[in-house]
């Protein structure tokens, strides 16, 4: 029971949603999946703005790439042929490894990104794919996901702007993504998660991006790792070296479940494996 809530508002349009949010200045919160109930439990929140009636639940693929509405659920991503076949499939993998089947039918792309929890599974993949966030309100019309998560997205969005969707540009051919996550069980918050994107030219890596999730308070790209891999043959040894670099670069937040040393080791292994997997997919013409 969220005893603090006085109203559930159903806006007729995105514009109305933004207007009402801004007017309420934090007392009215947009709600998509609503799985992070603690967000809505604080005393200053007096109502919620239900985003479900808005036309934001879509997944489309066109010549430019993927367009995903903010209230598309992780279940939608997993079930979408377009998403599963996109750039090697890491978007669907990340969505599919998050939480559980029932929760994935509630967790939304917008909520996972705008709420940006340490364990948010999708943003690392959005980072390596160079995705853009579409925003209604003063913070809009668009920010790169990288810009959005440089700090917690609430800093950009405030109570005045609403994430309405993401655009994932079509990556070049002979490139692909991979995603790996390790938790304690199959239905779990990650101890570490890694998203990679690799572009190959024969055996040589021409482009690479690596993002880490679940290890630090916010996910981020690791440009230092990328520079070690680009213009090199991406074999096991190079991938392992990249992994070790990542392990050194990461600053794990405290977690009672595992020591810093173990989590660094995990990062090292997952980065190496995800790089090799992305390369394998890129070499095989994607998935």
């Amino acid at each position, binding site marked *: 029971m969220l005893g603090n809530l006085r109203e559930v508002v159903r806006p007729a349009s995105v514009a109305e949603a933004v207007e009402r949010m801004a007017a309420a200045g934090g007392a009215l919160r947009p709600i998509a999946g609503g799985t992070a109930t603690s967000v809505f439990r604080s005393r200053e929140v007096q109502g919620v703005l239900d985003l479900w009636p808005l036309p934001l639940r879509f997944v489309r693929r066109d010549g430019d790439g993927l367009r995903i509405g903010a209230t598309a659920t992780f279940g939608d991503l997993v079930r979408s042929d377009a998403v599963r076949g996109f750039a090697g499939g890491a978007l669907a993998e990340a969505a599919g490894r998050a939480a559980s089947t029932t929760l994935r039918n509630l967790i939304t792309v917008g909520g996972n990104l705008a709420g940006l929890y340490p364990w948010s599974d999708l943003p690392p993949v959005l980072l390596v794919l160079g995705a853009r966030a579409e925003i209604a309100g003063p913070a809009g019309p668009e920010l790169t996901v990288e810009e959005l998560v440089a700090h917690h997205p609430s800093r950009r969005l405030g109570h005045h702007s609403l994430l309405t969707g993401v655009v994932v540009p079509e990556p070049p051919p002979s490139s692909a993504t991979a995603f790996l996550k390790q938790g304690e*069980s199959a*239905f779990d918050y990650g101890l570490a998660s890694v998203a990679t994107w690799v572009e190959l030219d024969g055996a040589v890596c021409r482009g690479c991006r690596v993002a880490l999730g679940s290890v630090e308070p916010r996910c981020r790209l690791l440009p230092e790792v990328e520079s070690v891999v680009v213009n090199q043959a991406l074999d096991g040894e190079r991938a392992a070296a990249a992994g070790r670099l990542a392990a050194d670069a990461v600053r794990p937040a405290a977690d*009672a479940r595992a*020591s810093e040393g*173990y989590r660094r080791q995990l990062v090292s292994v997952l980065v190496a494996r995800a790089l090799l997997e992305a390369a394998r997919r890129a070499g095989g013409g994607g998935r």
Partner: protein
Amino acid sequence: MSAERDLKVVGRSVTKLDALGLACGQARYTDDVVIPGLLHAKILGSPHPHARIVALDTSRAEALPGVLAVLDHRNTPRVMRTTAGQGFPEPSPYDYTTFDDKVRFVGDRVAAVAAQTEAIACEALSLIRVEYEELPAVFDPEEALGPGAPVIHDEPDARAAIPVEYEPGRNLAAHVKVEVGDVERALAAAERVFTRRFTVHMASHAMLEPPITICDFDDTGRLVVRTSTQVPFHARRIVAQALQIPVRMVRVVKPRIGGGFGGKQEVMLEPVCALLAWRTRCPVRLAMTREEVFVTARTRHAQVIDLRTAVDGGGDLTAIDLKVVMNNGGYGSHALTVACNTGSKVLPIFNRVPNQRFEATTAYTNLPVGGAYRGYGATQGYFALGVVVDEMAAALGVDVVDLWRRHHIRAGETSPIFAALGEGRAGVVMTVDSCGLPECLDRGAEAIGWAEKRGRRPRDGSRVRGVGMVCLMQGSSIPEVDMGAASIKLNDDGSFNLLVGATDLGTGSDTVLAQIAAEVLGVGVEQVLVYSSDTDLTPFDVGAYASSTTYLSGGAVQKAAADARRQILAAAAAMTGASLEELDLADGAVVGPDGRPLVTLSEVALHTLYAHNQHQVMGIASHISHRSPPPFSAHFAEVEVDEETGVVRVLDYVAAVDCGTAVNPKLAEGQTEGAVVNGIGYALTERYLFDGRGRVLNPSFGGYKIPCAADIPPVRTILVSTWEPTGPFGAKSVSEIGINGPLPAIANAIFDAVGVRLTDAPFTPERVLSALRAR
């Protein structure tokens, strides 16, 4: 009834009687009632691990509109007792009362509120002002037993109800020591001695339905306690005790329950709820939140185990020395009995080892409290024994399966431990009359592919595979202590109402008991209508624990049904003029020596109810067991270890189990499968995480990871059939033994794969990786 008789109902996998109702959501659990005027209760827990309550101000809470009662130590009776659901007088120390002026773990009970809504009750809790005098806290049992440790139970009225060792002044909650032969001499003379220390951790039952109690009044003013319990009769006794009212004023009813596994063999919520109801004269609902289940309900006891074994030149075991230090947390429920069971269920499996010693010491600490949890000490003990046996086999250069074969107890044998170690009293001399372990070993080894896989270490990149195994034995009921009773009456149409005190937690005991009755009475199981666990209507039963329902309660049902059978045959003899000795029951009728029906059960019923010499055909019987015949099991696990991440995956699991006659094979398999998966979670992922002040950091399913469907390996159960002469139709128990296998079998499989011996549970990836690095 001869052992050779063809069984018609027993041994069949009949559908569990309540299964369809449950599958359709129509079965009613405790909370599935609508009671006008129901009040909602909430409990205030302590933020400190160890403190005295110096001052309590509940005035603002009491003044809040909608609050009808606030209880704490000042306005409730102080009745020292145990929460453990055990036979009276209980072997667990009486160190607990409903509300005390001291708190002994973070979350321990301070006060309770009853209000018109849950929200008001929660608000009322926040208005209660408590002044604590914080005391030094201790979390390690050795430290707690050592000099200078803070005394957790310093109240003058804490006591042991039966003559057992109990020294709360040094935080000693229980102590037991037995020896046969001369262990020190044997260790000194041994060819080789193996020594290992093991740590086994605290765990949560994690049953899906949190404990919940609803108290109401009937129209004569008696208290009706509707509760999710494994022990309705103990609950009735203890509620009456706690409220200081006569037992006859209390009725306890158990509706459908959502699992227990020992976690509901504890009388925790009922007295609080009853006191609130009694005080307000209103119906009251008290439910645990999931967080409260993790923190304030009971847990599996953590133990430190030192195991030494000695082997002679011929490769025979000559001594076993098992030493346990057990952590009971803030209260002493099951402090003696779980400790005893670690020895009493483990040592006898090597009954011919002439020198055996067992010593267990249980300490109080300021942590969540240990209680009954499926396996009940044997889970911890078999980890130690199973790993050391594997180690011995490796050192001796023999197949560990053969080592088990050579040493395990056999049918017709006894162990001096049976008599030496009881549950707080002297044990019971007994021989093992049925032991299917040889067949369990044969069939289990074959099913897992033991010969093909052991020692091969096949590698796929950084992942290596291995197989491991263990043998197990448990018990069936607590002999000479526990009692179950049943009554069964005949209805007009030849059906029967079977009333049993025995408690079905979802285990299917109602069905199993119906099958036993149906077998005796020669009817189909659908003719037996079971009603259980209502202290007004059903005869006594200690409740569902100690693997006693099939064996003990089933024995009572068999006798009661036999009693009814005698009455039916006598009536039929009178009706037909046939001779009593010539009559039998089959297919819903009384049959003559040629097997042809003479009168139907319905005709007998109508005759006895209405026609002549009218009486209600009704059998009633009680049963106590005089022995605890062990089920036996051999478990085999195949694992894959990722040497880069330390992740252990179970690839395959086989549990071969001898439970005598499996009254309902599918249910026996279900018990085994559920126990095994629970055990796998216990071995790999489940653990309590604490901060430095004894506060649980992960009191949720999000933080405490039990296996989900996507985590399970294939699990195969092989039922090995033996005949236990003292059990109903040859049956023994099956519900606990399965949970004891995964910890040792997986540990041994990990050793087979990567050569590291893990002695600290659970085998988290970090632990495995550390061990690999230290290789």
